[in-house]
């Protein structure tokens, strides 16, 4: 299978690989996919007081296109607000990386991952607020 130059670039030099502390209240974690299907993505965001994503990290088990999709996404979400990051569509990722039809699911997974990370962050925050109200 031929990969696009952009996929190869992200695959060979993945950006923002790593892991952040799950328990940090500024961190949202999204983990999507399944080992049996051949891909699992973990995407984490660190959100500042102003609601802007300060940092993003990923780790991905999967094919080159899955790795590239998540690497690209971490670059894109940094500096964006949660609402902006949430509106990123898989088609934009697929287009940027020139993914072939059989690899579109990798970009879908990346979209799912950022949505899951944002949801996780918001849930954590709401719980904290509830805790502080009742407390």
């Amino acid at each position, binding site marked *: 299978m031929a990969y696009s130059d952009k996929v190869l670039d992200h695959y060979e030099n993945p950006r923002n690989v790593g892991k952040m502390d799950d328990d940090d209240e500024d961190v949202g974690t999204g983990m999507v*996919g399944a*080992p*049996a299907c051949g891909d*699992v993505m973990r995407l984490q965001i660190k959100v500042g007081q102003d609601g802007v994503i300060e940092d993003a990290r990923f780790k991905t088990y999967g094919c080159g296109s899955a790795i590239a999709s998540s690497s690209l996404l971490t670059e894109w979400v940094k500096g964006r607000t949660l609402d902006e990051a949430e509106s990123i569509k898989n088609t934009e990722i697929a287009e940027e990386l020139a993914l072939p039809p059989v690899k579109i699911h990798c970009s879908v997974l990346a979209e799912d991952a950022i949505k899951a990370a944002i949801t996780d962050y918001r849930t954590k925050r709401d719980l904290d607020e509830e805790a502080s109200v009742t407390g």
Partner: protein
Amino acid sequence: MKTPIYFDYAATTPVDPRVAQKMSECLLAEGKFGNPASRSHKFGWEAEEAVEVARRQVADLVNCDPREIVWTSGATESDNLAIKGVAHFYKSKGQHIITSKIEHKAVLDTCRQLEREGFEVTYLEPGEDGLVTPESVEASIREDTTIVSIMHVNNEIGVVNDIAAIGEITRNHKVFFHVDAAQSVGKMKIDLEDLKVDLMAFSAHKVYGPKGVGALYVRRKPRVRLEAQIHGGGHERGMRSGTLATHQLVGMGEAFRIANEEMNAESERITALRERLLDGLENMEEVYVSGDMDHRVPGIINMSFNYVEGESLIMSLPDLAVSSGSACTSASLEPSYVLRALGMNDELAHSSLRFSIGRFTTEEDVDQAITSVRTAVNKLRELSPLWDMYKDGVDMDKIEWATH
């Protein structure tokens, strides 16, 4: 060093230069280009003689009578002819066939076709070691069983089935026994005088011969009868019509002659290379070798690198020509049916590589492979959330994954 380095000898092999030389002598006007079936002139006689020499060379490698060798286009056709040929011919005696789940597609798809025609097929489960036990064969033989088809060496994991013991059972029960020997012939000793095997499929291109040619061994005593699958001039005693491809057959003959002469030394050399590869990789964490370690052909080894996905692993090994256990270039992400039949979970099956070593593999090639694989696996594990979880002691079987 020329890259990519070829580690896919189980898929096919380059033609040995000595074989290519012999083949080239059967093509041009001044060579043996005649039709071996032409009985009225020298061109035909010369070609026929060359074909009969080749037939003897093939027979010699497996210790049978040259009259028991039927030329075909390859092991796939041989498997088809053996299984369909016997099933059709003995249809009135019974319509039950036994095979295993880890056969080559040439056998499995042939059995599927016979099922569509109304035959019944039992697919035996191998053990976790990849071996089909003689006991499981015996237990599934019925009154109406006509043929058992079990491969000698599995093409994905390299384990060797005990065809001697299975043959004793099938002979006792008066059931025909077909063996797909595409991966074993020329790699290990086969003595058809000893073995109670009735049919055996061979291919030339796995043994440094050309593609597009093979043979089927059809036992004369006790006699096996076949219904032909290809009709025409009645060549090969009516079992397989079609003008004999002199240059191909001569190539196969020469390839088998060389194998006969060099097999012992070559096996020893290739086994040493395989052990070198194993030594270099086995001490990594979470690496698994598939199949029984005591019963295996020298050149094939299948290893799984847990928590690394197969396609990306292949992608990080541009300098190696290896084969992956997962066919995930399709959208379906199907892991190997062979590894699955061994009871391996999908993740591990997805992370497997088959290395197959052959005549032209060197120690330097193996050392390069070790370095490349170690680097690639380490890099991908650094990227893998599953590796993190494994390192953190998380039980991944307990996680509810959203399968997609």
